[in-house]
């Protein structure tokens, strides 16, 4: 399974409205719930926030990858979001974050999904990948980055 197989244009928002950390996470989680990938918004939010509490997933370089593991998630999924203004995500480099990947997985996920997700994490450490994502203006261009 490839990263592209896990991407879904309905789970992409290239113009996030949120202005702070809590609301951007909520905005991303809402998309999952609205599309039926997660049952309970509260439960998923809690899982993601708990992970944030151990250490921010704002890894710097404009990227944040909030993630959560919970059985309220029906299948492993990736939500892509982009903020044009930048959001303070308490990042490691103390710079605002522009690119967001919310990763949600059920407690017992198949390893093929997890492998694809690990590939996504690795790809994001690549400068070209980050630059293309920053430039992407529509969902198609986001897909292209991972093809």
């Amino acid at each position, binding site marked *: 399974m490839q990263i592209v197989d896990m991407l879904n244009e309905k789970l992409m928002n290239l113009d996030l409205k949120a202005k702070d950390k809590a609301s951007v996470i909520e905005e991303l989680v809402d998309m999952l719930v609205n599309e039926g990938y997660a049952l309970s918004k509260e439960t998923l939010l809690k899982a993601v926030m708990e992970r944030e509490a151990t250490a921010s*997933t704002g*890894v710097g370089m404009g990227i944040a990858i909030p993630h959560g593991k919970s059985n309220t998630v029906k299948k492993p999924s990736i939500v892509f979001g982009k903020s044009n203004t930048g959001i303070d995500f308490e990042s*490691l480099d103390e710079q605002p974050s522009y690119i967001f990947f919310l990763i949600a997985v059920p407690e017992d996920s198949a390893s093929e999904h997890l492998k694809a997700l*690990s590939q996504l*994490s690795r*790809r994001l450490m690549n400068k070209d990948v980050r630059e293309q994502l920053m430039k992407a203006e529509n969902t198609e261009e986001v897909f292209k980055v991972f093809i």
Partner: protein
Amino acid sequence: MKLIAVTSCPTGIAHTYMAAEALENAAKEKGVAIKVETQGSVGVENELTEQDIAEAHAVIIAAGANVSKERFEGKAILEIAVSEAIKAPQAVIERALKLEKKDLQKKVEEIKKQRSEERTGAFKHLMTGVSFMLPLVVAGGLIIALSFIFGIEAFKEEGTLAAALMQIGGGSAFALMVPILAGYIAFSIADRPGLAPGLIGGALASQIGAGFIGGLIAGLIAGYTVAFLKKTIKLPKGLEGLMPILVLPLLSSLFVGLLMIYVIGIPVKGIMDVMTAWLQSLSGANALLFGALLGAMMAFDMGGPINKTAYTFAVGLLGANVFEPQAAVMAAGMTPPLGLALATVLYKNKFTKGEIEAGKAAWVMGISFITEGAIPFAAADPIRVIPSIMAGSAVAGALSMVFKVTLRAPHGGIFVLPIPNAVGNLGGYVVAIAVGTVVTALMAGLLKKKITE
């Protein structure tokens, strides 16, 4: 050069892999080989093999969750937060590369630490006392040596600098030596309440002339007495506060003090006097045998209990103005790492690449009087290495005694040699150390087998 790394994070979804990727990219840019094991949600991937670990110069552990370090025993390990690997992978790689050079020293330090943690019972308490006493002996011994710059009798002239130096070194530092030894032995046994009776018992040992052996005994008695009193005396709740401030110090000091004066002090003084006189009169064959014995003890377990026994004995005698055993002991403690370092240069085909590299650090440890520097070599091939270093140390100790070399500082290796008057018969000392080093090197070369690869 090759590095290995393990990355892990709490959920094992993102950071594990980002850190792995970041480290791999940074290593690639620097032209360093790296293998990164990821312990994430998928389980362990790209697992490190035994061969990977053996070949690696250093291990980077970037983990928010705990990663077992057992596999990496003896390796230089750099532990960092997983976020650090993502944020500044280059710096992490650089730090890991630098670690590699300290490999042997680090190993030796770990061994020393482990050993001191493993010590139990009376031996541990004695070593605690000795460690608190040592700075006094170093300061006192060297300051007395400095006063001799003005002539060996110069301190007798009141008001001179030489007299002042003697007052600092002999009158104060050395006067505190035995009380501090006894006080901290008791402290180690019975915590704070042990200190007062220990100090008092030690001071009495000094006054009576029972020396460091009297101090050792006083410290042990004081410590165990306090421990016993603490357990047995039960005061009513309201009066408990009186225990540490009145009952314990009074009773234990009385007991230790009276025992020192009426029972223990005099016989121990007798033993000290006989021993001191015997040591001072030692010459020829007796000096040679005694030096060889001390030397062999220093090398036998390289910093272990037997080594420490010989060493403590010599340090204690400094307070009784017997300086020859200290010289023998330090020479014998320096030659094991020095001799093995020389052997790695002379017999390259009998040592592994790692050992030849470690030999460079062994030089430094040898001249610093860190006998433990020989342990990694001895651990790899004890049956051949330990006799070699014992022989070299026995020769060094024997020669040092025969040449009547004196040493007033209990530590410092080669670095105390230039201090005026710290060493008596410097030429003889250098010869003793050099010959001991060569003996160990030749014997190790003779005994060790060729490495077949």
